[in-house]
């Protein structure tokens, strides 16, 4: 009877769950590196979203800055639009992967504008002198300052590379066994609730 149905269902679960390669959700990940913005897109499970359309918009006004497409690896890059830099606009990067798949990624202005606004720099400098980490730091020449900034930036980029990679990998992870079994549990819970409700009705109206 019901056992047969149930065992059929169990077989389906346990045979197929370890199969990797989920999809139906497209993920998008973008970050700035110097003057370009680099992004990667994939369907959950890691398959690259090839030749998908990328639209870059101003997040607040909705004006389109540019459009591009992803390459064979699902990656894309574009140089930061001048208008966006001037307006210090947050970028809304929209991915259209055909067949009704869409996702977007917001890149805040602070993430791609090299040193923030002029005001922020002044504020930073002030705080530096105020706390006076070292008396010399305040008296660095402009050339030295740029050099240090450049060095710090380079080594940071090197250090953060793997972390960015990890984040990307995490973002594109598909559902795991725990999630799936959780969902199945929910379904049977709901069925139990309906059964209870119907059983009460049955009793009250003989």
């Amino acid at each position, binding site marked *: 009877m019901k056992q047969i*149905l149930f065992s*059929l269902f169990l077989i389906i679960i346990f045979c197929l769950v370890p199969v990797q390669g989920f999809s139906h959700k497209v993920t998008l990940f973008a970050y700035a590196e110097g003057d370009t913005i680099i992004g990667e897109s994939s369907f959950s499970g890691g398959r690259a979203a090839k030749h998908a359309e990328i639209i870059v918009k101003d997040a607040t006004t909705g004006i389109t800055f540019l459009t591009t497409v992803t390459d064979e690896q699902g990656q894309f890059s574009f140089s930061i639009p001048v208008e966006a830099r001037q307006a210090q606009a947050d970028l809304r990067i929209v991915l259209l992967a055909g*067949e009704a798949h869409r996702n977007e990624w917001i890149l805040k202005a602070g993430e791609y504008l090299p040193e923030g606004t002029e005001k922020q720099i002044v504020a930073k400098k002030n705080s530096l002198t105020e706390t006076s980490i070292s008396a010399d730091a305040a008296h660095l020449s402009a050339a030295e300052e740029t050099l240090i900034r450049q060095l710090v930036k380079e080594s940071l980029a090197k250090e953060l590379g793997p972390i960015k990679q990890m984040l990307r990998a995490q973002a594109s992870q598909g*559902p795991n066994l725990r999630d*799936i079994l959780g969902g199945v549990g929910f379904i049977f819970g709901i*069925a139990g609730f309906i059964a209870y409700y119907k059983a009460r009705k049955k009793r009250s109206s003989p």
Partner: protein
Amino acid sequence: MHISEGILSAPVLVSGAALTAAGTFIGLKKIDYDQIMTVAILTATFFVASLIHIPIGPSSIHLVLNGLLGIILGWACFPAILTALLLQAIFFQYGGILVLGVNTFIMAAPALVCHYLIRPQLKRSKFRGIFSFIGGFGAILLASLFMALALFFSDLGFLRTAQISVAANLPIMLIEGFITMFTVSFLYRVHPDIFEGNST
């Protein structure tokens, strides 16, 4: 077969939600006490099946099984598919809450069509195989057409989307046809009373 959030226009979303609500209401009314467990098992099967993706060629496909659900459950496929899609939307961000109505309708309406067209034919054991194959095949075909229709009403061009979505789902139509065929004939052998009661 899930449409993402933010693609469809508001009228499509609203009408999809309304149709799904009506279908779910009728479905819940029609479920009788003994059928609840069958509905739950098939809901769980549907929920799990659409999470398993098999890479074929350039893309990957997954089972939908809406034909099978329709043939066995009838109107109860609406609450079943709605529940499964709701959980998928919450847990995995497949589809989304706003498009839930449309997505449910896209898969449940063909299932219902299958129920009325295919189920009466299954009584004759001679044609059972071929009809259940048509059921599994046709349910996906109809679903891809419904999906194209939903996109069309949101001004995305019907013919092109229809071609793409039908072509993309062609392998899954064949696979579902066979799976539905084998499942139905298996169930008829071991558990025929599942097809007896509550035929509509």
